[in-house]
């Protein structure tokens, strides 16, 4: 008898637990693609080589989906600040999902734009987001060329190099 009482009492608990465990449809695992080191390094070394061929001493960063550094390259004789600057540009392009030059415009249009006060964000041209379809999976940042537009142009050659892999 005591057993059946216990079962009766346990039944609603079991039901509730089962309801909790039953996953809603949206709780499936996320499936997404991420940059491999090979792809990231190809982008970075191509961007660095392009700028070097033009006589610019640059540093390059590739950040991944979470803004984590995947590749960092300090070019021969690149100025000390270029390393951090390229990382911050890349982080900025990744987190706002736009070229970092776009943040320059946003800040100009809205001087109160608070995003630039976040750690590692910088409103400077020279980084481009890396996308797989519509998904931003990282960014490439370059610093050291005489002008952010030239940094961005070098970054673009890196992206072009792996365009076929970014699908």
């Amino acid at each position: 008898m005591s057993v059946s009482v216990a079962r009766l009492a346990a039944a609603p608990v079991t039901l509730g637990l089962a309801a909790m465990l039953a996953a809603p449809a949206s709780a499936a695992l996320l499936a997404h693609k991420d940059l491999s080191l090979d792809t990231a390094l190809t982008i970075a070394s191509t961007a660095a080589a392009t700028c070097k061929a033009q006589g610019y001493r640059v540093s390059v960063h590739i950040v991944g989906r979470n803004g984590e550094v995947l590749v960092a390259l300090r070019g021969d004789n690149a100025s000390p600040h270029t390393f951090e600057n390229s990382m911050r540009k890349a982080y900025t392009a990744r987190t706002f999902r736009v070229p970092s030059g776009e943040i320059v415009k946003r800040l100009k249009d809205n001087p109160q734009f608070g995003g630039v006060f976040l750690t590692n964000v910088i409103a400077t041209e020279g980084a481009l987001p890396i996308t797989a379809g519509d998904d931003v999976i990282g960014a490439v940042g370059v610093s050291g060329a005489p002008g952010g537009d030239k940094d961005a142009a070098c970054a673009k050659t890196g992206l072009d190099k792996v365009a076929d892999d970014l699908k």
Partner: protein
Amino acid sequence: MPVSTVAFRRAAVPLTASFAVSFLAMLAAPANAQLIERKDLSFPMALTIAQGALEDCKARGYATSVVVVDRDGVTMVVLRGDGAGPHTVENARRKAYTALTFKATSEDFAKAMENNPVRRQQATLPSVIGIPGGVPVKVGNDTIAGVGLSGSPGVDEPCVRAGLAKVADQLK
């Protein structure tokens, strides 16, 4: 002209002369005040070492990260291997820094920590870490860089040495 002034002037001549001589001696640079001439890793060499190390560990089945720091402990190259744990980049950098600044492997540093209180104190300095996997890069007796790798179960240093072997001929 008061006598005292004349006397002073007479005395002043040799004094001025001796000042001038000593001043010239100060200006004359000692032999060791020339610019320091030294060699540093080039970017292509640093990248070759890093890639070689990472590939060696990958061939052994381990996902690792590798960092090369220069003579001043400044990061030159960072590579985060596919699937390597989040801590591996920072760990690799600190191993590289430790090997560079103490001019010995980070394993040697770790061993020294066991019975050398000074080493244990130095391990509290920023970026120093007593974990094997950091190797100094030397040209002759000159330590010019450090390489650190993290993520393998105990073969971090052999992987680094495989990377260094790729540029052995250039480290002269």
